[in-house]
């Protein structure tokens, strides 16, 4: 009994021990196979597999006809393993001769290459030549030099160089830096993909072993409203004229009346995005969007249109224009015209034809400051255009009416004491040309994705600013500037009826006291006047040329180009007679 009891006890003990050990092993087994299973499997797969990044391509920027303005291109960085190279080419002479072969095809200096290898002899990685084209890359590969490798280096190319360069922006080492490249980055940017699979020793994928794969997503194509051939001609026209008159900068805007599409937005100085380092820092953006200026007399068209819309005046309202305007101004201050005259008898049309500051001041007495301010705001002065040009776009400057001093109260009517960008001025004339309805200015038609969807379409809606009658009558009055104004001969385009307004604005001195002897000159025009289709605004930065006659040749050239390019049929009727004097 005693013996059997101790046996039983031992047996129990053994059993317990065995169960205990088995339990521990089972527990561990469950832990490994069930609890940690997923994590361990993942680890195991990671050990066996490698992850490869697959690159998407950044989208292109094209013009309205599909011509490529910016595109992604393949470039390659030639790299090397100094450790391998130095072990293969044991003497400096051998190394130099191997590297000379590379420098011969890449055009880089052998000394630099040798230095790159010797900089860190134990390293496994060094850049030899960066960003070479496929031809060069192929040539380097054919040399079959031990220790030389490569990596892809996606780059950006602008096939049309400086055409619309100021609008496109460019890509720096940290990504898009300006212009469309930056504003529309969310459309253009690609998403890199990844594929993880198990690899054999020679690097070939083991069949059926793809663990996970995310496809790369190519960026969308941004389509601009710009016509790049027109843009080229417009850029040439303003650059030639700017150089001729010594203007430090110039802009030109061509806008289609029916939909507000900007067909050309030219800036001088220009930048070739392929060669950003060759351009001045100030030349990188688009002045037409970024730089407001006192527009001068081109604003008179808007002032007259507002007064007509409010029912205060008509095109034939008769006024007496004194030699100087002093009404309501503090003693000693006066407003004068660009030409000396005695007392004149103008109609509203005559005020515009001869661009009389005094005349528009007299007319503006008909309406209160706040109301005139509100009309300007309605025309878009002081607020950014609908174009999404981000922080680069300026809203211009329109101060509240209650801050206007007596002289500003009048000068705003002829575009001094107020500022606007070229695109804003174009927008004002588009509204006049489009029978009083502003079609918001548009630069991007949309973002076209590879799956056929289109995003980033302009969502803005047309806005009625003034009545059709007021707009049409203003355009009719502006025709007198081209048929009989002081520089009409420079503005006339044979065969076409053109309505235009010139602007010569003395530049305010930077210290805030008075004006310098420099002028910003501009011409804003509409053609054909009987059925407005295109608006052209050319502006030349401060020069000593104090007459818009120096801007007129560029305007004529650009407008002629626009009318020819878009096959606008010549006018068949003469401009109607508009009474300008009495």
């Amino acid at each position: 009994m005693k013996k059997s009891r101790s046996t039983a006890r031992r047996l129990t003990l053994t059993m317990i021990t065995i169960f205990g050990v088995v339990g521990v092993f089972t527990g561990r087994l469950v832990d490994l196979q069930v609890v940690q299973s997923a994590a361990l499997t993942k680890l195991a797969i990671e050990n066996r597999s490698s992850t490869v990044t697959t690159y998407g391509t950044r989208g292109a920027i094209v013009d309205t006809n599909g011509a490529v303005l910016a595109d992604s291109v393949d470039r390659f960085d030639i790299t090397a393993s100094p450790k391998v190279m130095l072990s293969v080419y044991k003497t400096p002479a051998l190394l130099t001769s191997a590297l000379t072969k590379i420098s011969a095809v890449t055009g880089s200096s052998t000394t630099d290459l040798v230095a790159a290898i010797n900089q860190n002899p134990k390293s496994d990685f060094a850049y030899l030549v960066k960003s070479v084209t496929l031809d060069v890359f192929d040539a380097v590969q054919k040399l079959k030099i031990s220790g030389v490798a490569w990596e892809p280096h996606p780059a950006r190319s602008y096939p049309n160089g400086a055409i619309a360069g100021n609008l496109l922006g460019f890509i720096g080492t940290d990504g898009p830096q300006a212009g469309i490249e930056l504003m529309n980055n969310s459309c253009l940017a690609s998403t890199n993909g990844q594929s993880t699979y198990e690899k054999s020793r020679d690097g070939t994928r083991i069949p059926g072993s793809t663990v996970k794969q995310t496809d790369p997503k190519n960026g969308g194509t941004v389509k601009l409203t710009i016509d790049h051939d027109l843009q080229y001609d417009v850029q040439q026209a303003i650059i030639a004229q700017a150089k001729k008159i010594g203007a430090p900068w110039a802009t030109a805007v061509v806008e289609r009346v029916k939909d507000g599409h900007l067909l050309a937005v030219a800036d001088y100085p220009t930048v070739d995005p392929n060669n950003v380092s060759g351009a001045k820092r100030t030349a990188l953006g688009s002045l037409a969007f970024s730089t407001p200026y006192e527009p001068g007399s081109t604003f008179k068209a808007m002032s007259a249109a507002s007064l007509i819309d409010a029912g205060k005046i008509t095109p034939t309202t008769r006024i007496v224009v004194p030699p100087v305007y002093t009404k309501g101004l503090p003693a000693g201050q006066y407003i004068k015209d660009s030409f000396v005259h005695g007392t004149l008898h103008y109609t509203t049309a005559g005020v515009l034809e001869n661009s009389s500051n005094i005349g528009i001041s007299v007319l503006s007495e008909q309406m209160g400051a706040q109301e005139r301010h509100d009309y300007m705001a309605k025309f878009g002065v002081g607020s950014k255009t609908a174009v999404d040009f981000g922080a680069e776009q300026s809203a211009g400057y329109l101060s509240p009416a209650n801050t206007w001093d007596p002289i500003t109260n009048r000068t705003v009517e002829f575009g001094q004491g107020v500022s606007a960008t070229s695109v804003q001025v174009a927008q004002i004339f588009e509204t006049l040309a489009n029978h009083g309805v502003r079609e918001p200015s548009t630069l991007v038609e949309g973002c076209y994705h590879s799956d056929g969807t289109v995003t980033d379409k302009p969502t803005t809606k047309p806005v009625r600013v003034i009545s059709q009658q007021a707009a049409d009558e203003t355009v009719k009055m502006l025709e007198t500037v081209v048929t009989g104004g002081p520089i009409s001969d420079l503005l006339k385009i044979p065969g076409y009826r053109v309505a235009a307004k010139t602007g010569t604005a003395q530049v305010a001195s930077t210290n805030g006291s008075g004006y310098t002897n420099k002028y910003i000159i501009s011409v804003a025009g509409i053609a054909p006047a009987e059925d407005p289709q295109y608006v052209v605004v050319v502006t030349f930065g401060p020069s000593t040329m104090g007459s818009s006659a120096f801007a007129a040749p560029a305007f004529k050239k650009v407008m002629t180009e626009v009318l020819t390019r878009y096959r606008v049929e010549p006018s068949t009727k003469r401009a109607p007679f508009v009474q300008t004097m009495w």
Partner: protein
Amino acid sequence: MSSNLAVALPVSRPRERAEEQHPRRVHLVSTRTRRLARPKIGYAIIVTAVIFGIFMAQLLLSIALSGGAYRIGSLQGEQRDLARVASALNEKLQTVGSTQNLAANARELGMVSDSSPAFLRASDGKVLGAAAVAAHGSSSSGRSANGATGSVPNSLLTDVPLVKTSTSGHGDANAGNSSNGATESSAGTPTNVGSSETVVAGSGDLPSPTTH
């Protein structure tokens, strides 16, 4: 009982049994092999063959698969290379198709842009607008021959030469073009040129589009 049994059996029965059993044993063995051993070998052969077959099939399949993997690998490599070539060629095409390059080549051929727009309406042959002879502008003022520099530069064109058919032919084409333009305008549309002159000289009238 026991002695009787002990004597009788060992002598007679083994013989009898041996005699009897011998043919029986042969029979039994043969029937056993038929019943048991033969089917076993058959199974073994079948199983072995099947297993062998499976292994072979798996091996072949695996060879085929990895062959496919290598083929996929090489084809993907080829596709990548070809895509690169296509992209590089496209890049070159875009560069030579750039406006600067086309304009430079057009200038080289003696082409000029007309600053006075006019249209010939096909339906009734009317000339709309004021046609004038295009002025032969200065061909390369302020810009390099190929458009790489100049007012609207394109640095991609730095190493792109102009397209030239032949040096002599190019000169002829240039001369021929300008003289051609002159004869055409003087002989072909005299009234038209006249009308444009009156307009430019300027009473402010539109050109009368009556020329036929």
